[in-house]
């Protein structure tokens, strides 16, 4: 395939294409077609992926609420009548439950909706199991409410929520023990009266995980904090260690067999399955160093180990791409090796280093497997960490682990939340990338 087009003889015209050229052109056209097909296929899959995620995940951002005036009976909630917070705390959610059921029954009667239900307790499947806790928390926060009738916005149960979103149908309810068709009739009526409404679900973004029976209450907020603290740990440890290691290996280390071995092993480490790092973390950080289990600190350290090879490889590549003439220039005016690296080479390599770091962080952000082994997957945190130290040390989960956890729970309402969690994870990732692009722009210099 050399340029032998004119070899056929003297009589060839520029206007007739000879066989060899035709063949070459055909090959080129074919190759272009393959490229276009490849890109089209990948775009198609991307569209399908995003479409599915958005279609399945968006309902998680909507939640059904029942707005209900609840009479907070002083006789039941504050028997001593002194509004003493310690006494008030003695009344558990079991004390509040009947009040709320009763309030719903009264409200339904006031609105003139006919129901076959005779007991207040039978209305309970409409309400989230978290309703009592919601009311109790508010009462404990402001004891003055006791004795008054206060309007609460209470979560509807996941079945009712699913019915409003089309996830639960009358067919599926027939096989469902926790709710029946009469409840759905009542839900329809309440919706008509504006008591049952759908609203934006902030609690999904800011809230904590909930138990298996309360999917309507579960949120990704706390595990997002877990991920955030882990990413801080990863950034704090992997960036300086990775960059220092790369600078040493690239600029200072002698070229010998030992350093070649290190280089090969770093490349190999980048390809080690992440679960191996998980078991290493379990052995070193938890069993040997006795750091707390399930803590974002430990998770961050494990992910640091996993991210380091990525950062080292990309940092070395970007250090290598700095033209040697810059090093010569610095050495030529009498800069020491270290001055030439820190004053000239490193600033030029900075955009590349940042890119590598962000790729590493993004990888770490999406990692679930190593977290399995250090106990960060499961129903872990139901409360916000109190302060920064707790954020690092209290048991917590991470976003991908939370999504994994939801996806394996039985209730289909959790399936919807898993998709919603993926949307938030992707948004989190996009935010990180945007920050990286802005930083990159800031550091980028022409030469």
């Amino acid at each position, binding site marked *: 395939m050399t340029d032998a087009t004119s070899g056929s003889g003297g009589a060839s015209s520029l206007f007739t294409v000879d066989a060899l050229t035709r063949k070459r052109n055909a090959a080129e056209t074919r190759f272009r077609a393959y490229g276009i097909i490849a890109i089209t296929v990948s775009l198609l899959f991307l569209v399908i992926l995003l479409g599915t995620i958005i279609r399945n995940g968006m309902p998680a951002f909507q939640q059904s609420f029942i707005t209900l005036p609840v009479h907070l009976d002083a006789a039941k909630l504050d028997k001593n009548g002194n509004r003493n917070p310690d006494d008030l705390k003695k009344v558990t959610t079991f004390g509040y439950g009947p009040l709320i059921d009763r309030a719903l029954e009264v409200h339904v009667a006031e609105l003139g909706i006919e129901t076959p239900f005779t007991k207040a307790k039978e209305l309970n499947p409409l309400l989230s199991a978290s309703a009592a806790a919601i009311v109790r928390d508010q009462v404990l926060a402001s004891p003055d409410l006791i004795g008054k009738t206060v309007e609460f916005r209470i979560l509807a149960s996941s079945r009712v929520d699913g019915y409003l979103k089309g996830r639960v149908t009358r067919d599926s309810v027939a096989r469902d023990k926790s709710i029946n068709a009469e409840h759905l009739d009542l839900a329809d009526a309440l919706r008509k009266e504006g008591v049952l409404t759908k609203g934006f679900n902030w609690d999904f973004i800011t809230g904590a995980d909930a138990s298996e029976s309360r999917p309507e209450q579960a949120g990704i907020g706390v595990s997002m904090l877990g991920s955030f603290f882990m990413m801080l740990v990863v950034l704090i440890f992997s960036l300086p260690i990775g960059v220092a290691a790369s600078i040493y290996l690239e600029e200072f280390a002698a070229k010998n067999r030992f350093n070649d071995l290190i280089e090969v092993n770093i490349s190999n480490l980048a390809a080690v399955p992440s679960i191996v790092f998980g078991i290493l973390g379990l052995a070193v950080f938890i069993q040997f160093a006795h750091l707390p289990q399930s803590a974002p600190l430990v998770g961050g350290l494990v992910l640091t180990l996993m991210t380091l090879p990525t950062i080292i490889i990309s940092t070395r590549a970007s250090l290598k791409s700095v033209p040697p003439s810059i090093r010569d*220039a610095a050495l*030529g*005016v*009498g800069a020491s090796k270290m001055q030439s690296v820190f004053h000239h080479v490193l600033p030029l390599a900075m955009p590349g280093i940042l890119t590598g770091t962000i790729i590493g962080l993004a990888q770490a952000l999406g990692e679930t497997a190593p977290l399995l082994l250090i106990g960060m997957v499961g129903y872990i945190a139901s409360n916000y960490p109190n302060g920064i130290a707790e954020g690092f040390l209290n048991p917590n989960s991470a976003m991908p682990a939370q999504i994994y956890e939801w996806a394996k729970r039985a209730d289909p309402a959790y399936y919807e939340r898993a998709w919603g969690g993926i949307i938030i994870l992707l948004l989190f990732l996009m935010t990180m990338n945007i920050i990286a692009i802005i930083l990159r722009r800031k550091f980028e*210099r022409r030469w």
Partner: protein
Amino acid sequence: MKDMLIEERTAMEDVKISAKDVNVWYGDTHAIKDVSVEIKDKTVTAFIGPSGCGKSTFLRCINRMNDTIDICRVEGLITLDGQDIYDPKVDPVQLRAKVGMVFQKPNPFPKSIYDNVAYGPRIHGLARNKAELDEIVENSLRRAALWNEAKDRLQSPGTGLSGGQQQRLCIARAIATEPEVLLMDEPCSALDPIATAQVEELIDELRTSYSVIIVTHSMQQAARVSQRTAFFHLGSLVEYGETDRIFTNPVDPRTEAYITGRIG
């Protein structure tokens, strides 16, 4: 550019750099073979020779830039003002502040023109305050004949200058640290004839304060700017003497063959 007066004067000046039996190996390749040469102060010395003859390698031995190449080994004695520069007590960083270097390709730092020139004085602590630094920068740019073009854009990037201006900026950067010797490795090979003429004029001026060594592929350039010329061939120093004599009356047949264009 040369006149007898200056030649007579330089002949009387002291030897600035002296090399004795210098051998350089790159791994197994014997790049420099038994080179002995004495380079005078306040003189422009040109190293000429075909590509790969070792002239750049020898130049880089004089400020120990070869130290940065792992496989490079230097033997023999090179002295600057009588002091062995390869003595273990010598810090190459300190040496390079005394022996400045200008490279083949203009390589300004991707910083402002001001910072390019100020970098050397800053790291060597040559200026006590901003005013002194400003003065050093201005002087260096003036001596590199760049001040008039650059004075209004000191804060704009050095990489935004034209090729010739960039090379003069590199020269300004090299002389800002007040070196005693200036090494130039084919400083004009990337420049057009006008920029070359400017740089050559500059080299001639620099001779008043420095010992300048210039590696060049252009024999016309060597003839124009240098007072003494060394001809290298296959790693050996073939002939060294006054430029006029080398070009008009070479002793060695190889020198003659090279300057008449038969080898190279």
